[in-house]
């Protein structure tokens, strides 16, 4: 940013001098000395040289980020859209929270925080007639096991119950059958509401959500559970926990590749090959003895500090392709190495992930060290400069209290980019598109 200011100042000076020249010639300056004209000419030439020099200034700390939708990371959504928040009875949201407050700290806490944010945000409108988008606060990922993992078995019924409630008490659902409604479904496979991939694919997206916009963490191309037009968000990571563990940026990055996590899921997949499609196991088998790879399953208390001392951080898929390691890598400036075929990363139209991270196909995992060591230095420095941009770090966090450019604003920006609505989503009165008896028999039971 300083560079732009300097540039504009220099340009202004050039402008003044050029104008002086023109004016001097045009208006026949009173003091028409040739030496003054020479001096101003020399000044303009000098400033022109300066202007050209500043184009090649390379000692910038970070670079601007512009994705496929343009330079939209720092857009302000306020004023571009209006959101109406339905008031659902407590059994859809508050009671779940009261039953288990762990919902506010796990990876899927985005649904609670988005609700909280929208209630207080200036984009909220109390008049539904002027709203562009409608939000239904139903916490489908808050039914937790004693271990803290969400059970998705009731979620389709809860969602159907919530939608039938809003269609009963407000006319806006029936107007479009969900075309201008959005739902936050941060679970493993989004609105497929299952944690196992085969079952999720078999179920497909919940039929009543067919026309709605989904805000989810799951994203994989050519997958049933990614609806076109969905907004992919990062998993929730508590911002204070990460921001309190920064070490000075001059600490030299001496770890080449860093990873902490499971390679084999002994409980669910003892032979290997299912978990992570065998990619994590391949990483372990090939590189456990490689001194450049600091990979282990041991949980260390200096995890965040070690990430800040590493150049590359592996973000392989697990049972689902997304992982909170991406968020951690971006916050701590470690280049993410994404090993997940066909993955759609958060806010992919605002953030150019191919320029920031390294994508390794799963079948090339056994050559990971070759791939990483042959990346050129300029590329690595370029990626680190992009990662140093505070805008991208802000975009990955669900900050409390909300800050401009954080994940909430990126969601709103994504929704705003989808406006204005296609007039085809508005149905004629009485027209029905959704089939409410479609889906699994168990999901049809009222909740």
């Amino acid at each position: 940013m300083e560079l732009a200011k300097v540039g504009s100042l220099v340009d202004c000076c050039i402008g003044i001098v050029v104008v002086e020249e023109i004016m001097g010639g045009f208006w026949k300056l009173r003091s028409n000395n040739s030496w003054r004209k020479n001096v101003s000419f020399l000044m303009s030439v000098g400033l022109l040289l300066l202007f050209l020099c500043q184009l090649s200034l390379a000692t910038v700390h970070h670079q601007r980020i512009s994705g496929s939708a343009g330079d939209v990371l720092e857009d302000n959504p306020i004023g571009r859209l209006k959101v109406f928040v339905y008031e659902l009875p407590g059994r859809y949201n508050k009671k779940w929270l009261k039953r288990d407050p762990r919902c506010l700290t796990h990876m899927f806490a985005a649904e609670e925080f988005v609700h909280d944010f929208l209630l207080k945000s200036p984009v909220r409108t109390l008049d539904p007639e002027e709203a562009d988008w409608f939000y239904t606060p139903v916490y489908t990922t808050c039914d937790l096991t004693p271990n803290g993992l969400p059970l998705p078995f009731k979620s389709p019924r809860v969602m159907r119950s919530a939608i039938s409630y809003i269609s009963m008490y407000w006319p806006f659902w029936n107007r479009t059958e969900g075309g201008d409604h959005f739902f936050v479904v941060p679970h493993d496979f989004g609105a497929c509401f299952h944690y196992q991939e085969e079952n999720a694919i078999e179920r497909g997206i919940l039929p009543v959500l067919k026309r709605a916009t989904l805000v989810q963490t799951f994203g994989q191309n050519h997958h049933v559970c990614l609806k076109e037009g969905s907004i992919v968000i990062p998993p929730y990571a508590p911002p204070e926990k990460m921001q309190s563990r920064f070490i000075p940026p001059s600490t030299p990055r001496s770890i080449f590749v860093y990873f902490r996590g499971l390679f084999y899921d002994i409980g669910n997949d003892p032979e290997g090959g299912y978990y992570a499609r065998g990619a994590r196991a391949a990483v372990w088998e090939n590189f456990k003895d490689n001194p450049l790879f600091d990979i282990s399953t041991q949980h260390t208390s200096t995890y965040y500090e070690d990430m800040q001392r590493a150049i590359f951080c592996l973000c392989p898929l697990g049972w689902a392709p997304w992982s909170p390691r991406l968020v951690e890598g971006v916050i701590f400036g470690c280049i993410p190495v994404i090993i997940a075929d066909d993955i759609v990363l958060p806010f992919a139209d605002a953030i150019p992930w191919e320029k920031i991270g390294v994508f390794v196909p799963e079948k090339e995992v056994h050559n990971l060290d070759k791939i990483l060591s042959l990346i050129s230095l300029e590329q690595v420095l370029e990626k680190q400069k992009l990662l140093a941009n505070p805008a991208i770090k802000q975009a990955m966090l669900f900050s409390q209290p909300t800050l401009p450019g954080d994940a909430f604003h990126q969601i709103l920006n994504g929704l705003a980019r989808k406006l204005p609505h296609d007039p085809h989503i508005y149905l004629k009165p009485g027209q029905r598109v959704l089939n409410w008896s479609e889906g699994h028999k168990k999901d049809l039971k009222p909740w």
Partner: protein
Amino acid sequence: MKKAAGSHRPSRMRSKNRSGFSSDQTSDTAFRSTSISFFRIFIQCMFCIGTLVVGFRFTREAHFLRASFHHPEDSFSRRTGARMGSLVSIGNRSDLDLRIQEEIANDSEAFRLENSETIIRSRVRVDVGRHAILIRPWPHPDPFEVIQAHHLIARVQMEQWQLYGSKESKPIIAITTTFVRSFQAVHLTGLLHTLSLVPVHVTWIVMEAGGVTNETAYFLSKARVHRLLHLGFGDAMPAGLKERGQLEAHMRVEGLRYVREEKMEGIVVFADESNLHSLEFFTEAQKVDWVGAVSIGLLGFAGFEEPAQSRIADVHQEEVGAGRRDNLFARPTFEPQVQGPSCDSKGNLVGWHIFDPLPLEEEVYTGIMLAQNRRLEWPNFVLNARAVWKTEGNQPEWIKSWDEWVTPKDGSAPDIKAILRDDKQVKVLGDCGRKVLLWWLRAEARADSRHPANWVLDENLEIIVPAKSTPWPDRPVRVPSPPPPPAAATVGTGSKRGAGSRVSGGKGRRSKRRQSRPNIS
């Protein structure tokens, strides 16, 4: 040109005359000239604002064009053009090994066929189900790639230093005292590597007690510092701890005298060889104006030894009473073993925290006792080299001149803290003393311990064991109960191994012969 100038001049004259003649029309022309100048200024301002806007956009456009033409193509595919052949061959070989795993994959074919309907319907490009774990047959790293990776790491660190590193780079002058002994190798090697890694120029002054020796020179030859001075000090290092501390103080003063005479520039750091420095210490030392103070952590507290430990337990018992008896063998709690400056909440120096260890038993030579007269150590202080220069006028008045503090009046060893007239002027480093930037490892071998010179042996060690997997027997040895007849005794003297149990049970030829002999006889 001249004509033009000439033609210009009459016009100028004309304009001047115009303005001069219109003395009666001054108001008119004055009004016109002011309106013209206002209008001109207004136009100029508009142009300026316009260039501001246009210029900003133009630079952004130029940057964008530059960035868009600089496609960072993945050089991996380009660079491995020549090596593609080897990659493919690895792939082929791994395919052979994958056949075993493909059989496992084939088992899941049946499973996949069940779901084929759903798969076709979902157009999933990535298959769900069991996948093979790809392991390449030679998993070890390629040395070329390892070197590339290290180059990358080094270059990234250089870039980091340029962007975020300390902008000040005053050279460091490290003064170290040493003498030849067992643990010299332990301590000097660590210090050597630390000083080689300091990113600024380091002048390392090594004062050796007892004169310059080859052994120390051997260590110092490995140092990668900007300048190395290996000086000898006449007296040998005494054995007692207190005298050793005094001699070290004299040697440091000698080092400072050298700095003073050569008029060296930089920051003087007392890098004792038994200290462990963090590189952050050298970064913090750059902030010193004249005198700075750091906190030292003390390791190797002799209180972990039994006599002191029991004393601490006694203290606890007195305090708490019988309820704490079961905690007698629990880890005793110590106060933080840190010595250094102490600040108040506003960040001003209010005093010095001097660690007072429990008294040691005299026989237990496990560490260097802190001086009983409760003084700060030399490494606690960091000096600007100019503080010891001859030009006395340039120093602030709260620093004593050289002669005043170097030779104390009562004949005791010089102390660095005596250079200060006013303690408050000291700059406290490391987050106001809260951060411990260096540690004192108080561990020494016994004065009479023997070690080979430079820890390098000239010849092999004396005991030779035959090269087998284990020199010791795998199973318990059964010694033959009757003593062997005189014929076997000659065999026994042939092998000089001494204790018989050691030799038998092995698979050497000699022992076999020894065992076979009694059978024959």
